[in-house]
């Protein structure tokens, strides 16, 4: 039975698992279409992207997490002029700048799609990685430093501290803005 109208049989079933917690949304075609969440393809199958867009829209998490200002003035991408609402509707970005333009709104969406994760931990582009490689190295060294201090290995800790300082200076020179922590 459709969760929205409680009248028609549900035809759209969305299952999502986040951190082992399963959530399900069941809607009839009419309610799904009313919400702009899904439409039929030529072959009669529901479009995945519209289902995704629907998932982003119906989610109470999303509604709570959108900052107040996005309701007062629509957020628009500086690159392709796609609005955040348009993105929610089609479930796809228009250009790389959308990520920058919607940066504030994205974490709850990404959390929902990627098991609670919002920050990239994988590969960096070799040539373009620039200061990001160094920043990652600093993070690693900081954790090594903490461990060495706890083990009272102060001589080695001093060496690591110097490595961190020189890397941070290099990052500042490159204009990457070292993290102050």
């Amino acid at each position, binding site marked *: 039975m459709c969760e929205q109208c409680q009248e028609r049989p549900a035809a759209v079933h969305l299952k999502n698992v986040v951190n082992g917690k399963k959530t399900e949304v069941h809607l009839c075609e009419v309610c799904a279409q009313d919400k702009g969440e899904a439409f039929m393809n030529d072959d009669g199958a529901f479009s995945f992207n519209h289902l995704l867009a629907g998932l982003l829209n119906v989610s109470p998490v999303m509604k709570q997490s959108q900052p107040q200002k996005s309701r007062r003035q629509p957020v628009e991408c500086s690159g392709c002029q796609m609005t955040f609402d348009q993105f929610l509707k089609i479930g796809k*970005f*228009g*250009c790389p700048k959308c*990520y920058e333009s919607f940066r504030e709104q994205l974490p709850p969406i990404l959390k929902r799609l990627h098991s609670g994760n919002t920050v*990239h931990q994988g590969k960096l582009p070799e*040539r*373009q990685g620039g200061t990001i490689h160094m920043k990652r190295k600093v993070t690693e060294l900081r954790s090594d430093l903490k461990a060495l201090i706890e083990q009272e290995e102060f001589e080695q800790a001093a060496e690591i501290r110097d490595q961190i300082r020189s890397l941070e200076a290099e990052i500042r020179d490159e204009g990457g803005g070292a993290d102050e922590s």
Partner: protein
Amino acid sequence: MSLEKFLSQAVSSWMNEDGPSSEIVLSTRIRLARNHHQYAFPTVFTKEEAQQTAEAVGAAVRQAGYPLEELKMEDLQGLEKRVLVEKHLISPNLAEDSGSSSVWLSDDEDISLMVNEEDHLRIQCLFPGLQLKEALRKALEIDDAIEQHFDYAFDENFGYLTTCPTNVGTGLRASVMMHLPGLMMTHQMNRIIPAIGQFGLVARGIYGEGSEALGNIFQISNQTTLGKSEEDITEDLLHVVDQIIAQEKSAREALVKSSGIQLEDRVFRSYGTLRYSRVIESKEAAKCLSDVRLGIDLGFIENVSRSILNELMILTQPGFLQQYAGGFLRPVERDIRRASLIRERLEMDVSKDKGGSDI
């Protein structure tokens, strides 16, 4: 054209090798989604931008030094595109588009670079059997080589920027195609599929989202692309796949032990159907091929090569049937052609074995 000659041209050469765990795992696929930082995504890009993106990818591929051949979608006939889709070398999405979309293929067809599909570039590597680490290594190597000549859209926090937020971060989709008749016959897949979800993975039937598992073939792949390294994603998938392999083996052993003769009967009835039927629908063909493949794995059938399932699952698709027939076929004609193609293919193995024919 003789079937033998057609086969040698139709089936990707990477499929002819038996990979590790090939009694259960048919193939491994790694896909990386990448975009150029300067151009709009295919969702909204202009014709001109599509052209510029295609040229930028083309230049990078040539400079990277990989001997790949480009096939432009606008130069291909509908049937040719359909065959490429059935071989999993391009996606249905790419086939539908004619604009500035293309695919770059290696000679063995184990590398496929899709241009202007949902993303500007999709690097795809295909390996026989279970070879996740090897396929990942190859895909990342191609990725590095292309990045030397192509400015990727990348963000320190979000990683590789993709058209769809479901791919952002690593842009990695690692998939393993598994043949799981034992788990299906013992009704365990219903339990396994939800369990897989808890690891950020998903199991689908062979023909993508929401489709039934034709021929007991499932594609297990990662859903999470952000917040884990490429190695961790493939490691987690491998861990789950290893578990599924172990459970499939146990299920097969239990079936042989508890109802060996019934299982053997089922296998040979299916073999009989494939060898002698004159009209066969795709669903029945898939079911019988799965049984025969299981019969080969269990040693009931000895004179048929193991690659038969991969091969015939592809060859009995509508595009291939029509290509082999040399033109358009109505559904009923396809069923007749499918039956005759399967009979011919099985005859090839039997003739090699016995030096004769009984069909």
